[in-house]
């Protein structure tokens, strides 16, 4: 198996090398970082629903659809990507998805450990720290006769720009998104108090992959590969591919496995109710409620938000909790019934105009 330790590649090139090698049937490990930032969406995502395209345009951030799964993300030079390609017929590597993620995450976990960060693979296909914070996202897919597994070591992460590149219903949602990312996503810099030298991390990562794959043969990007990347670039940057529509509307933004930020809006007789909730494993972690309805006593709206924490994200459970709250606090909310709040919370979607 080859090793393409290519350093930093400009723009989309960093994400074109793996599909190029996969379509050429070349088994390889690629270690790469993007020289300039870009936004990336998963294969099945709808760019116009996921990405704030005008923000990206204004700030010169290109976006691309990758040929592997997962959600929208922001990539820059502070992330070191590992991209592994192998033929489906290779008996030394797994073909079953769960095993692929679990086994091929070991080198990244070990790399973090070597730098003093206790990290392990978690079932939702993330790498998390002992404290449960996500420290690497991973994805994969079948390309041609090959299988491809990709992930990224986070030296540092630009939370602010990440929150800005995503399409969100309003600024409250964006604020919640930013805070939730800060709480649930970590980096080497945050864990260690400094960014370790890139080359040291790369060397460790390669060494750990070699323990799993055997000795890797260093290779350079040759003309054939560059030509294949150019060909793919035409397809990947075509409007037809970039703006491909998908029928499924995104319900929220996934922060890490099992944790999402959702947005709800409902027009009740007494006014519009807006909610932003952090939902973890089908239970409400935190919720913010706003709108132009009347609610007395006013200060009890904040108490309702607290009351809804740790409520299962199910209609009956949410509605019962609100009904009990109405009774216990003698809530007066003309034209806004517990069912209205329940509808706003449960029928969440990213883009309320749809």
């Amino acid at each position: 198996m080859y090793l393409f330790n290519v350093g930093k590649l400009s723009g989309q090139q960093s994400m074109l090398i793996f599909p190029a090698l996969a379509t050429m049937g070349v088994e390889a490990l690629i270690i790469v970082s993007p020289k300039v930032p870009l936004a990336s969406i998963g294969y099945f995502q709808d760019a116009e629903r996921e990405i704030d395209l005008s923000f990206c345009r204004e700030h010169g951030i290109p976006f691309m659809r990758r040929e592997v799964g997962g959600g929208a993300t922001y990539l820059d030079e502070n992330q070191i990507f590992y991209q592994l390609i192998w033929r489906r017929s290779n008996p030394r590597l797994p073909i079953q998805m769960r095993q692929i993620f679990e086994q091929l995450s070991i080198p990244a976990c070990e790399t973090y450990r070597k730098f003093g960060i206790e990290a392990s693979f978690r079932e939702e296909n993330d790498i998390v720290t002992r404290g449960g914070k996500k420290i690497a996202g991973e994805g994969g897919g079948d390309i041609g006769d090959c299988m491809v597994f990709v992930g990224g070591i986070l030296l540092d992460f630009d939370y602010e720009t990440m929150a800005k590149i995503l399409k969100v219903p309003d600024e409250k949602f964006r604020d919640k998104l930013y805070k939730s990312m800060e709480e649930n996503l970590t980096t080497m810099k945050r864990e260690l108090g400094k960014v370790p030298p890139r080359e040291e991390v790369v060397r460790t990562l390669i060494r750990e992959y070699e323990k799993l794959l055997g000795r890797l043969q260093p290779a350079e990007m040759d003309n054939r590969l560059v030509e294949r990347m150019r060909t793919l670039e035409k397809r990947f940057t075509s409007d037809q591919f970039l703006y491909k529509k998908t029928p499924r509307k995104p319900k929220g933004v996934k922060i890490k496995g099992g944790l999402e930020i959702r947005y709800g809006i409902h027009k009740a007789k007494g006014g519009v109710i807006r909610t932003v909730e952090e939902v973890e494993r089908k239970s409400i972690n935190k919720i913010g409620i706003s709108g132009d309805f009347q609610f007395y006593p006013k200060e009890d709206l904040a108490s309702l938000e607290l009351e809804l924490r740790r409520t299962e994200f199910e209609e009956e459970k949410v509605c019962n909790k609100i009904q009990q709250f109405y009774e216990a606090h003698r809530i007066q909310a003309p034209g806004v019934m517990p069912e209205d709040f329940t509808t706003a919370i449960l029928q969440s979607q990213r883009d309320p105009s749809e």
Partner: protein
Amino acid sequence: MEIDGYQFPDDLYYDKEHYWCRVEGDAVVMGTTDFAQKMAGEIVYVQFPLVGKSVTQGKPCGALESGKWVGRIYAVVSGKVVEVNEELEDNPELVNQGPYDRGWMIKVEPSNLEEDLKSLMQGDDLVQFVKSEIIRVAAEK
């Protein structure tokens, strides 16, 4: 029939990519197997070929995503697509809930059915293949 806890209806034909087909009059309906959907976990997206497009046995004709993995949908027989299960576009989890009924994927008008069926598995061949796959997956752990 049931093979080590996985359902494989007897009247279907199966390929080695873990897809099945059922002959329904002049048409053939395809989908993925109970074994494959359990291995994949929750299916979150599906993408089908356009109606009218030709598909070739053993070749990819669509895609699906589960657990951040984008996999291929393989055509079990060759032919022209006459219908796709649009319900799956909004509710892909139906593949997990009922891979042989509401989770069906593509209906084709076959172009070479008699020959295509000869290369598919049923009965003992299927049992042998599925058991070898179960062993292979277990060995990966």
